């Protein structure tokens, strides 16, 4: 298990979290290299199907992050996203998806350190949870 390095996909909005992650860089704060950022204009744009796709493709953990409430560049995209996540998370949990592998977060453009913490804590948690074999097996069994 110690060699297991989780694959984490981060779906982030352009205006807050992406910029926050930029700040992490400019501040030279180090974090785990397991994460790959996919940039969206807004958390409102993040389709829940993409989360499913990420798991089916072998992601072990997912970060979804955008602007804090009231900070949305588009005024309310994050509020809509929040409701969508809420419904999605409950449903996923009801279907037995390991929702602790999905970390929703607000990281502002000023929270470079928070972004590093978020990545590290997610990586650590997912590392403890181990690879998401259950989901991967389902996907693989479809490939007989």
């Amino acid at each position, binding site marked *: 298990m110690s060699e297991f390095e989780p694959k984490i996909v981060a779906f982030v909005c352009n205006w807050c979290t992406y910029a926050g992650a930029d700040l992490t860089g400019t501040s030279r704060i180090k974090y785990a290299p397991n994460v790959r950022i*996919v940039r969206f*204009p807004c958390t409102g*744009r993040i389709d829940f199907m993409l989360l499913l796709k990420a798991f089916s493709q072998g992601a072990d953990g997912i970060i979804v992050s955008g602007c804090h409430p009231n*900070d949305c*560049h588009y005024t309310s*995209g994050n509020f809509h996203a929040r409701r969508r996540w809420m419904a999605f998370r409950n449903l996923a949990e009801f279907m037995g998806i390991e929702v602790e592998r999905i970390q929703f977060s607000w990281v502002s453009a000023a929270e470079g350190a928070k972004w590093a913490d978020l990545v590290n804590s997610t990586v650590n948690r997912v590392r403890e949870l181990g690879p998401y074999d259950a989901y991967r097996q389902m996907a693989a069994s479809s490939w007989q």
Partner: protein
Amino acid sequence: MARIGVFVCHCGENIGATVDCARVAEACRKIPGVAHSVDYKYMCSDPGQTLIREAIAQNKLTGVVVAACSPRMHEPTFRRVCSESGLNPYLCEMANLREHCSWVHEKSDVTTDKAIDLVAMLVEKVKRNKPLHPIKVPVTKTALVLGGGISGIQAALDIANAGHKVILVERDPSIGGHMSQLSETFPTLDCSQCILTPRMVEVAQHPNITLYTYSELESLDGFIGNFKTRIRKKARSLDEKLCTGCGLCTTKCPNKKIPSEFNTGLGMRTAIYVPFPQAVPNKPVIDREHCTYYTKGRCRVCEKVCPTQAIRFDQEDQIVEHEVGAVVVATGFTVKETDFFPEYGYGKYKDVINGLQFERILSASGPTLGEVKRPSDGRVPETVVFIACAGSRDPAKGIEYCSKICCMYTAKHAMLYKHKVHHGQAYVFYMDIRAAGKMYDEFTRRAIEEDHVQYIRGRVSRIYERNGKLIVQGADTLLNAMPVEIEADLVVLATAGVANEGAEALAQKLHVSYDSHKFFVEAHPKLRPVETNTAGVFLAGACQSPKDIPESVGQASGTAAKVAALFSMDELTREPVVAVVNRTAPPLYSTCVGCFLCQSACPYQAIEREEIKNRNGQVVKTIAKVNPGLCQGCGTCVAFCRSKSIDLQGYTHEQVYAEVMELLS
């Protein structure tokens, strides 16, 4: 297969020292569809740019990925390079190898692997990019300014002086705002009204300014350069053209006991009234809530005495419509009202007042004609306690922020009091003295050192009345939290500056965001402080957060400059990152089923209804249509649409799907 060019930048040592750029370039060369892949020391330098230009031409590239720094830094640079080489700029994407990789990880194979992933992801995205073209919209060169306080006045005058039309809307019967209520202004102690009234008159007389007082915004639709606004002109019950402002009606009105808003309830006014003598316009309104004719059906004294027969009891509210290209929001603030400090007895004890009330008491035009008398019995207070931060910086009260102006005006209050009541004692309870500003610290120092105002660093826990005195209990934190008890005659609370009631509703009408305190939010706290996230709507003054006069005026002029810059163009170009509803061949025409659930999800009202007609002109279905002028490209509708009928240019389903699939393949 597409022909994608990959350009890996070392950014000197910034990327190169951590990521093996040559390996990244080599790995990318093997990706199907990559026709060209190189690394270079400084891609953004002139030779670097030339490298890209030449590669586009030689390899007939259909897309470009520049793997360098954050796209927030150089995306415009490289898109321009592509554009200059004849490649549509939107066929260029940037992989963020610096901020998201080299700067945050140690040098290792893993880091280089990550860099390869980041580029590969964007290669897949860019393969699916489509050429996009900036959207052009015309500009109506008229500005709407909401609020006739000093900020609104300044913005209106600046814009009007730049040669553009301005529509200035003020909710109250007169422009002037809070500044007209003030006595003297810090740190110069010059008379507030003396410097304001000339500006007010200038507004009234300016040929480019149309002034609507006693009016409110009804609605705002449209988008930058092309707003449509409806303004409600509340009935003044008066024909403004006929009224000469002689004031006879106001002197004859029998209903004289109405608390004056201008005098913060410390003085009285009549039912037909001009809020203050220097009002612009200097024409009265009838306060229908209190007018005997409206409440009881008889009186009409004003009508009888009016020499020009200007009274119109049957006048109704009027809606006027205007097309404007920009909106300046300068609706100001208010101070926290009574019932907020039960422990201070504010609202219970007449002699516990707020700072604005004390301004009126100090003002020569105020209810006491500038003599300091306390409201309860008219006695000159011998001991006055000023409490700064009354509500501000107090998370328990829900107001975490610093109201910013209180330190200065409290110092001014104490100083002016001492100037008028030489033997009086003034105490100021404060948390910190925030006097950052030109001549500000010197000013407070003067209050302490020259006028001997007693500053006590500490909070007041309770005020209660005993034997006609107000017992102020507090602690002096500089004396080891020693309890302090002062018997005061008057207590002045520097209550928090808060957003206007109705600010939320107004923000919703304007489609601008507001913070948890209902102050309007600027587009960027540092770099775009006067813009909002709704293009074409700008902010000035205290509607954004409490501000003093110089700051408000400065921001108003800044806003005016933004508006003038906008109006300097006949047409606007906008990023084509907008949502589009798909169209398919008949008989479907579009996969949109017209449920319009996207409409309420859109923060910009950009989703309209479109009727699709067949060849015979019959409407066969109604589908959603995105107005590209309004759409800001957040994509909330896109993720929301069940049938995937809306897509966001620049972040299409195919693009983001391909990114995710590539990332994990």
